[in-house]
């Protein structure tokens, strides 16, 4: 029961009050890319979830083995990024060799989902290094869910951001900027000015 509550808390934390994608504006560019292919969004966020989990585990292992100290703390994000790169390489290699069919499906967004997991976990890095295993799963699920919501909302919006009644200068990307701007304004009801 306790672990379940913890998981929920982490998921809710990631999705709403500290929803990185909107209130922080992070990882947004990749969400935009994903939003152009609405059907892949689900697989995409699943991969983000898996990569977050794997790289968080790796990061924790690094954190335990590497010496604590000023220099190591500064290099933590670097270590984390390298860890994710390693996870990505391993995953890509395994899938390429043994499940080429599956690899073909996920190939277009495999690398960007790996990079995304780096982006999304960066602000929580200090916390990520001290997570328990259950918390970690909750955190990964929350990241995936947040990513899914963001890309779903955007993919719906993208279609409507090109209509002939719009001023020509605003068609496409500028309107999307405004859309996301107002959407992140909406999240202010929860967070106020608080960021991280």
């Amino acid at each position, binding site marked *: 029961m306790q672990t379940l509550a913890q998981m929920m808390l982490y998921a809710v934390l990631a999705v709403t009050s500290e929803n990185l994608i909107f209130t922080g504006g992070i990882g947004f560019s990749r969400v935009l890319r994903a939003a152009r292919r609405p059907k892949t969004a689900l697989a995409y966020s699943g991969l983000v979830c898996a990569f977050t989990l794997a790289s968080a585990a790796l990061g924790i292992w690094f954190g335990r083995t590497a010496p604590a100290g000023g220099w190591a703390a500064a290099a933590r994000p670097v270590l984390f990024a390298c860890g994710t790169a390693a996870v990505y390489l391993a995953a890509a290699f395994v899938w390429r060799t043994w499940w080429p069919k599956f690899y073909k499906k996920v190939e277009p967004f495999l690398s960007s989902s790996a990079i995304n997991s780096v982006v999304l976990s960066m602000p929580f890095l200090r916390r990520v290094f001290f997570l328990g295993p259950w918390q970690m799963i909750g955190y990964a699920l929350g990241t995936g869910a947040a990513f899914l919501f963001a890309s779903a909302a955007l993919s719906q919006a993208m279609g409507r951001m090109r*209509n002939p*009644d719009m001023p020509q200068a605003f068609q496409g990307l500028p309107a999307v900027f405004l859309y996301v701007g107002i959407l992140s304004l909406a999240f202010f009801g929860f967070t106020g000015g608080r960021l991280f």
Partner: protein
Amino acid sequence: MISIFSGGVRLEQKKSRTMKNRIETLPAPKIIAVPLPGAQTSAQRCVREGDVVLRYSQLSMPIRNVAVCAPAGGKVLGIRAMPHPVSGTVDCAVIETDEAVGEIRLESPGMGAEPDEIIRLSAAAGIIDEYDGIPLFKKLKRFRRLKIDWLAANVLDDEPYVCSGLAVLKENRAAVRAELELAAAACGASERKIAVASEMRARHYARISGAESDMLVSGGGIYPAWPRLLREQQLHGRRPGLIGVQALAALYEAVEQGRPQVSTVVTVSGEGAKEWKNLRVLLGTPVGELLAACGAEKDAVAVAGSPITGGMVTDPETPVTADTRCLVVLPADAPEKKVFPCIGCGRCARVCPMRILPWYLQRQLQENRYPDPQKLYRAEKCCRCNACSVVCPSGLSPAEAVARAAEIKERG
């Protein structure tokens, strides 16, 4: 599962002014252009230019359509293609009427209730269903094939202004009942009803009482009434069919007196006309004559068939056909259509009797140049009742979008 939202729209009827008076018979005009449906080649026509025809003599005899008889005696001036009031054009025999030319004596065929006989007679008498313009004999044949077991006289008149069906029912109650029996026998239906848009309205306008009032079935007072009516019967496990009341009345005359269908009842109303009347006119009477009889202005624009699905009549020479039903005269100060973008009120979906989402189809068509046919849900079910366009507060025509979507879906 019966949906709570049955679709359809309630409209102000505007019938009482017309229904106050009895049906008025318009005298034969100088020149009539009798439509000859299905008779494109001279082989299928029985007359040529210059012939003098007696009243009730045969004008055409196509294989796949009804035979047409001359509504009035006179001299044939020629065969011309004329605009059809509802849609397209139709070949017409233009006749200069002459009272001096006599008529063929009619005799009752004196027949029993043999299905084949009835069907043959309805073909020979040139009877056309006034609601959809399909010849009665074809309809009866199809009903027999489909094993229709619930047959109703179509007196719906669910559009505002239109009340020709109700007027015919009011004045020919016994005939309609008798012929309903015959038609039912012809297609093998066991239950016979009178379908009206709203029971109360029918009782009030058509003064129905007694045996007929037990036969009434109501469509709920909405436009369009028939989808709901038929669906209700289907839910009870019946196979329903509808036959126009004017066609039944014409069949009565054909059976009793041997007279072919040479006239039809047309409602002339609308704010542009001074008098609102139900007129019995000969087939082929120019629309201008009807408008003049009701005091419409010279260059008035009228809508024939139905104010909701019908077409605009611009040429006063346009002949009246069996499926004309009504002429609604537009007032001179009728406003133009004001168009806004779709605001998403969802009314079109709420009134759709076939549960299509017209706004959704319209958006799909607008956003994608090549929409995915899979995503055009239910577009092919459209019954072209135009109810969505009637209620749209933005003044758009979702019905057109649905039609286009259905076309795309059909092409795949």
